[in-house]
């Protein structure tokens, strides 16, 4: 369980997340891509804490902040999905190609 292996796995998860966030049309699936990217980031942060900081709790604090980011992203994402659906009846990105509906 070396740092290289952990960063490798985190990079794979992050890469899949990038693919998902860019390729999906549905808003909720785009959010899943973003969450997967944050998942990889959390793994990398935990690995860095465990293997390079000498167990300093400040490394774990960074992961706590990342989890906050994830919760805020999910809350705002869901709110925006509902808001856009109310106003524009849109659930995929192609339906909001124009700013003025």
């Amino acid at each position, binding site marked *: 369980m070396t740092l290289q292996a*952990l960063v490798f796995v985190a990079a794979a998860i992050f890469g899949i997340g990038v693919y998902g966030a860019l390729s999906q049309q549905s808003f909720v699936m785009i959010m899943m891509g973003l969450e997967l990217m944050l998942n990889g980031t959390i793994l990398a942060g935990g690995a860095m804490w465990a*293997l390079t900081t000498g167990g300093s709790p400040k490394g774990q*604090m960074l992961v706590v902040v990342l989890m906050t980011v994830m919760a805020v992203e999910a809350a*705002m994402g869901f709110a925006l999905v509902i808001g856009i659906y109310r106003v524009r009846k849109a659930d995929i990105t192609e339906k909001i190609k124009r700013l003025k509906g």
Partner: protein
Amino acid sequence: MILNITFWAFSALAVFSGWRVFRADSMVRAAYWLLVSFAAVGIILVLLKAEFLGLILILMMGGEMTIMAVFMVAFMMNPAGLNPMTMVHRHRIAIVAGVVSFLAIAALGLFARFPVARAPVGVDPTRRLGVELLGDSMLVFQSAGVTLLAAMIAAIAISSARGRYGDADEGSVEPTQLVPAADAGETAEGTQPIVGGRQ
């Protein structure tokens, strides 16, 4: 040895389920694949002796992905996955971007030199994190809490069906500040005075 095997097993599970998220026909199943990916990463964090973070990740994501599955059923076509489904755009560019970001980060992990300093044995990381949370990093912890509160209020404000001055899809301009259509000389949408919501 056993630690390594467990680590690689859960790593493979995390990556595989992450890939399945975008290959599942049903969006509900995609949500639960994402939960599997998060749980595998949580278990890897536990293997790294970050028990608190790993378990709180699993706990948080269990709740969040269940809410996400409800969203899928409420909003999306084909929630049951009875038909094959691919909803993608710019597929090739997305694949290239994903592969490039994977290679870049993996190269960083393989070739960059990081300091090697493992956590000392015999010190409880969870206890140290608790002391840190309510000690030196209290401000960070409190800021995270206030940020979450602000996100909750903002989410309710964005998604509520009725705004302060009428229905959510009618705009948010105060009725008394709108110019009546006759005076303005044009009948553009949105300049009608709105009294008591939808007319």
